[in-house]
């Protein structure tokens, strides 16, 4: 889901940098206010945790493996604003060191996976959980938060790619960047995610959530209002 260089037009990647940059600034200001001098080590370790989640590859049908984005579980455990910075740091390191995702697409990739995904996951988790503390409902909330978060992220990617033939075409109508229209990108990306990758993300989020809920309930963001940004998503 990392968009490479060459697929997004400047009309898309420049505004995406502006939007993502605004979120980064708000997240850093918010976290700095609440954590003071603890901000740097806290966000560093959150980023490390996020990076390590992505290192666990899970087998998927077809003989290949995939890794979870992990933004949903990071948002559930540490809060969505922390997830914004932590997952962004990981995506920037991945783009620079491994070439996973393009340099021009950092803004768009961070928006999809480090902004949209944690917030959608948090909203879905809160919506499904309600005021219940029942284990089964919480597990369902965790699964759906991972599932919906990744699906939202995948749809955003599909839209960003699919609008390229509309907003950046030659005078004769030939696309100049990502060539596939929305009618191709949305089904192609969304179906693959709906029936496979989102389920993997949901399962991993649920398994991790259950483990934390059983062994470290006080460490969970939603369970402890003193945790950064607690209860203010």
């Amino acid at each position, binding site marked *: 889901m990392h968009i*490479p*260089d*060459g*697929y*997004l*037009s*400047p009309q898309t*990647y420049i505004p995406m940098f502006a939007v993502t940059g605004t979120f980064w600034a708000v997240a*850093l200001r918010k976290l*700095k206010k609440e954590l*003071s*001098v*603890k*901000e*740097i*080590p*806290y*966000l*560093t*370790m*959150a*980023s*490390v*945790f996020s*990076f*390590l*989640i992505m*290192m*666990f*590859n899970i*087998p998927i049908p077809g003989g290949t*493996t995939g890794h979870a984005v992990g933004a949903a579980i990071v948002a559930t*455990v540490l809060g969505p604003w922390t997830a914004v*910075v932590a997952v962004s*740091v*990981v995506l*920037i*390191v991945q783009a*620079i*060191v491994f*070439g996973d995702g*393009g*340099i*021009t697409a950092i803004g768009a990739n961070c928006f999809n996976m480090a902004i949209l995904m944690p917030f959608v996951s948090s909203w879905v988790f809160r919506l499904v959980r309600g005021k219940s503390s029942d284990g089964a409902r919480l597990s369902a909330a965790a699964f759906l938060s991972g599932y919906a978060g990744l699906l939202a992220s995948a749809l955003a990617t599909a839209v960003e790619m699919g609008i390229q033939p509309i907003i950046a075409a*030659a005078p*004769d109508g*030939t*696309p*100049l*960047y990502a*060539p*596939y229209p929305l009618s*191709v990108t949305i089904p192609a990306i969304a179906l693959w995610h709906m029936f496979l990758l989102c389920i993997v993300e949901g399962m991993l989020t649920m*398994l*991790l959530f*259950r*483990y*934390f809920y059983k*062994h*470290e309930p006080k460490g969970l963001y939603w369970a402890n209002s003193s945790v950064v940004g607690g209860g203010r998503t």
Partner: protein
Amino acid sequence: MNNKVPSFLLTTQPPPEVRGARVKGSFIDKGIGHISKFYETVFLQWELSRKDGLFQRLNARTKVVFLVFYIFIVSVKKEVSSEILVAVFIFLFVLLSRVGIFKFYWKVFIAGFLFGVLAGLPAALNVITPGETVYKIIELQRARIYHLPETITVTREGILLVMMLTARVVNSVSITLLVVSTTSFSDILKGLRVFRVPEYFLMILSLSQKYVFIFLKMLRDMHSAKKARLIGSADAAGWIPGRIAFIFNKTQLRCEDVNKAMVGRGFTGEVKLAGLEYIKTVDIMYGAIFIALWMVLLIL
């Protein structure tokens, strides 16, 4: 006489499945393999950045400006000929930077093939890009089925589009790889100061990359310890969440340690990145050359 050999030593573990020249391990093994790849990539970049070449001699800020400006020019060009011109300049810089040309372009062309040719190939057909027919592939029995044209063809406009996409991917990857191969990660971060990226954000990036090494080693040790102690397959569904939760606890504890160490050394919240090199004459000279070339490319 009773057999006193413990039962777990009597159970035999099936040998790893062999497919061709590769031994198929568990998916956890593959994940641990990625960790080794991470070490290897970072180490190779660090080693290449210490070679004596054109880009290695330049200040990180000059290279970061080069990266951003040239990636931008690659993204705005709309003709294959302009992209080829950019590729020629990059090739010269790669040669002068002595980064191992075959390995370098092997990586670049793999990315170009995957994200340019392979991903863009269907766009060469008239289904996606209508235009002048170059090659007729198939004539459909039932016309206009699923909104498809009666004849599926490769179009001239489609081929140009795939070439353009591939050239753009190849150029973007080669520019990024050139800078990344000739600059250490910490220097790239320092170079980002030129675009007014907040220092404390750069410090988080820098510390994260360093601590990732420490925790990856811990993860690898945990996996080795598990493999050495357990005979047969372990419950992966239980092991992975358990280890991730363990790492989470460790990161929280390390957070406290790092915070105490920083405060103990006089940290008050104000971040100042150390070791930023001064801009030298050679940086100004090459900076001027890069900007002049950039302007020529922009006009062409």
